[in-house]
């Protein structure tokens, strides 16, 4: 499944798309602690978080994550969005809370 397919199927809001929409979704990682993601997330995973600041995209880029999904209707800061565009990493949003969204994505990845 690509990020585009995930975004369509789960009706995600697209803050920033770009080349990364073709990325393959290797899994998901749900956490709001940046060092947890830095230390334990894997390449190609979708990062599910309520953090909206720029450092999220810096970590997504360093870890080569496939996309970032902001939960609970949160919107990215201006500089977060700018970095997402620059790095071509999809920045997406859902009104769901983290537990619900993680569940929906998990079910798609492990039907």
């Amino acid at each position, binding site marked *: 499944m690509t990020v585009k397919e995930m975004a369509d199927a789960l009706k995600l809001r697209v803050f920033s798309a770009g080349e990364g929409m073709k990325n393959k979704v290797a899994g998901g990682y749900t956490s*709001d602690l*940046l060092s947890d993601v*830095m*230390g334990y997330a894997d390449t190609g995973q979708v990062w599910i978080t309520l953090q909206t*600041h*720029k*450092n999220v995209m810096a970590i997504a880029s360093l870890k080569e994550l496939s996309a970032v999904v902001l939960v609970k209707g949160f919107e990215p800061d201006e500089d977060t969005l700018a970095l997402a565009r620059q790095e071509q990493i999809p920045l997406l949003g859902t009104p769901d809370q983290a537990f619900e969204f993680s569940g929906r994505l998990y079910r798609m990845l492990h039907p």
Partner: protein
Amino acid sequence: MDLSFQIQGGDFTSAGTASSQVRRTLKELGVDASVIKRVVVALYEAEVNIVAHAYRGLITAEIKPDQVFMKLIDEGPGIADIEKAMTPGFSTASQEVREMGFGAGMGLPNICRNADVFNIHSVPGKGTTVEITIQIK
């Protein structure tokens, strides 16, 4: 090849710039992806520690065919009890920094886990020096 970066304490908008540059250079040099991943985690955490805790710092990265050696020297409050600082979950980060999702007490453990050699030396009231060596297979 040597790279160096000046880091400003408190400047979270630039946090990760050094790590990103070192990662790019290692990729260009064709270094194994698993090695780059470890360098990125260790260097990012050490870089963020300067931003979150120190006044300013200097990062140097020495890339050789067999290893990456990184040295981070900061001017800052230093660490009184290094053993305590190394304990997973322990942090002295401010509330503001914690709300950003930093300061979970995972930084130094993350560095430790990814480094082949890790040295930390601190003088309270002056600053901290961290040395990280990662072998290139």
